[in-house]
Structures are given as structure tokens and as C-alpha cells.
């Protein structure tokens, strides 16, 4: 089945290291239903900022929403760790 819905998240980080930790932490967990959705990660450096780009593809808006929600919730924990430690 083709992925009809898509979304890109661009998350800025202060340090390269932070972007790469976020990428490693997030990318470990497999997508529970690979037929329904796909995620890819990329790090880039644009105008003094390190970005983590997350491309999400899914077969429906609903699946996309759940996926994006989960990733953002995890990102919040990751960023909180950076802030506190």
C-alpha cells in the first residue's frame, strides 16, 4: 500500500551531539506496523543550527497523527534530559 500522508518535523538543537543522540535514541525503536508507516531521520546543519529532520509517512492521517505524537512525546523526554543533565 502506498503512503498517502506525510509530515516532516524539523527539530533544532544547539549542539551536533544533541541532534545525534536524539537520532540514535529514537531510531532504535522499530515501527510496530511497517506496512502502515515509515520514518526516516536526517541531521543537517543550517545557519548555525543543528537540525534533526524527521520524515514521517503513513497510510492515513490517523496513523500519521499517532506516530507523530509518540515521536514528539519521546523527544520531550530527550530534550528534558539535555536540559537537566
Amino acid at each position, binding site marked *: 500500500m502506498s503512503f498517502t500522508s506525510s509530515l516532516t518535523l524539523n527539530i533544532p538543537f544547539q549542539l551536533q551531539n544533541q541532534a545525534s*543522540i*536524539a537520532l*540514535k*535514541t529514537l531510531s*532504535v*525503536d*522499530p515501527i510496530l506496523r511497517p506496512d502502515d508507516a515509515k520514518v526516516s531521520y536526517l541531521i543537517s546543519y543550517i545557519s548555525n543550527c543543528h537540525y534533526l529532520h524527521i520524515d514521517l509517512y503513513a497510510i492515513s492521517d490517523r496513523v500519521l497523527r499517532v506516530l507523530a505524537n509518540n515521536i514528539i*512525546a*519521546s523527544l*520531550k*523526554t*530527550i530534550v*528534558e*534530559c*539535555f536540559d*537537566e*543533565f
Partner: protein
Amino acid sequence: MVVDLDQHLKPGKSSYVAIGLEGSANKLGVGLIRHHPGQLSLSNRAEVLANIRDTYITPPGEGFLPRDTARHHRNWVVRLIKQALDEARLGKDDIDVICFTKGPGMGAPLQSVVIAARTLSLLWDIPLVGVNHCIGHIEMGREITGAHNPVVLYVSGGNTQVIAYSKQKYRIFGETLDIAIGNCLDRFARTLEISNDPSPGYNIEQLAKKGKHFVELPYTVKGMDLSMSGILAYIDEIANTLFNKKNAKPLQNEEGKNKNKKNNLCFSLQECLFSMLVEITERAMAHVNSNEVLIVGGVGCNERLQEMMKIMVSDRNGSIFATDERFCIDNGIMIAHAGLLSYRMGDTTSLEDTVCTQQYRTDQVLVKWRDD
């Protein structure tokens, strides 16, 4: 033969410190533990540096759902880690290993905690160790009580198992065929709309203390295994006929008679379930020729269960070991302890292997740190 636990002590350090993160159900726990070199023994005990917990408590009549529980854990996990480090007066440089619960448990809550474990591991450059939740309970129980080679009764909200050690595995002798004992008690608490604070099981225990009349319930031991869903359905039906019919008095209006009926039902449910546990534990003791029983897991706090087990064990001239709520109920320290044992044997979990699994049986773990 004795296992050498000290092949991996970092140069320049005189002890090991582990942090443990637990979040497989509705409790979020963070613990810090210190081991000194050498075999753990009564004179060389593990040192608890911090052990804190935050429980997600739902309103009466409601259970905890994976998504909400995960949200609770995410909200608290970083704060709790910080608090534990402050309490132990330790920094990241003191920690040798970060331990987390790999399974078994609810997927979403497990995953929300492992995210923090991975981030800290990468940020601080400290290795990770994934721990089997049941092994955590067993090892912490052994360490706290000093039990040597006991038959372990592991009773909690998600698990009911009778376990004994043999040839580097904790082997499951008997277990529930359907729901766990804690689940059975919790769900009956929901039917009666008993408070979930501090835990439904604790509140049932208090009501049961006032119960006197035993209501006959099905007794469902199947060989070495148990089945509890039928008992729950049976007692739920009794409760619903008594309290939830149109003409029945509302549950919240606790007048004399209804209160008594509630007490008696709680009492009967406990007596019935616990006698089943005592029966299979006794049979396991006979099988493995052991006269020690160690009770671990959240339901292990129940004083009536401990009392009933004690009666059986003293008939066999044995001894019973149990811990209090700090170590019985899910906690981070047990994860730190079991993880550290595994780390001292040279095990670490690579990042790719840190994916949590909802199913992870006790006998899948090779117990390298024991060799008896």
C-alpha cells in the same frame, strides 16, 4: 565453584554504582545501588543509596491504561532521576552502569522510560544493561532477606509464578494460566469501587481483616498452575447482585450491612486465592527439596499471605522470607541490583538491543552470577 564477579571493576574505583529505572506498570521507580568488590554476603551487602518511586493512581473503579501510564512516566522520569542522584549525593561520574527494565510489562510505559535511559547513556557515555523485571524481584529479595536458595513465589499485578533456581536459570514450576493474582484483586477492587490509593490490593487487605464469614468460591489449582479468571467472574457476579442492582443501595453509601458484606467478600477472595498459592508453593518445595520460601512482588506485601505461607512453611520446618513495601512493590533499586550483577559478569546491552519487549519470561535469562 564460585563465580568471579570482579573482572570488570574500573581502574581507580573501589566499588560499583548502578542506577536502575523501572516503569513496567503503573509505578515509576529510580534507584541507586552500590556493590563492593567480592561476593555479596551477609558481611558484604549491597548498599541502597536511593530508592524513590512515584505511582500513577487512577480514580476508584478505574484501572490504569497504557497510554496514560506512559504519559505519567514521561512527566516524572527526569525529575525522579534528578531527585535520586541528589539524595545519593552522586553525579554522573560515579555511575558505572544504567539499568532499565526491558520487560515483561506494558509496552508504552516501558518504552517511555527506556528513552530516558538511552539518552543518558549516550550523553554520559555509560553502558546500558536491560533487566528482566522478574529477575530484578528475585535478586533483590535474595539480597535483602539473605535467603540462600529459596523457592520463589512471585506475585504481583501482572505476574504469578512459582520459581526455583536450577543450573543458571530461574525455572518456572507453576504459574497462572490466565490473569495474575494482583490483577484479580485489583479488578475486584474496581467492581467494589474501592480506592486505588495507595493500592487497591492494600485496601482489599484492610477490608478483609474485618471479614469473618467465608463465602464459598471456586478453587482452581490445575496441577502446578492456577486459574483465577473464573473466580473473579464468580465473585464479581455475587458483588453485582448484592450492590449494583437497581434496588440495591449505592456502593458509596456504606451502611452497616453492606459494609459487612464487602468485608466478607474481600476476606473470602483473599483466603481462596492465597490457599491456592500456598498449595502450589508447598508442592514446589517438595519437588526441589528446599525448605526456604521467598515471597516477592507487590502482592507479597500482604500480611495475610505471609501469615498463611508461614503456617505451611513452619509445618515443614522451613523458613519464610519476605520484604516490605520498599522492595516488594516495583522499584528501581531491584533493577539496579540485578543489572549490576549482570554488568559485573561483563554483560552490557548494545543500543540496538534496548528495544523493550512485553513478553520476556523469567527462564529466558542466563543467571551468570550464580553457579551452584
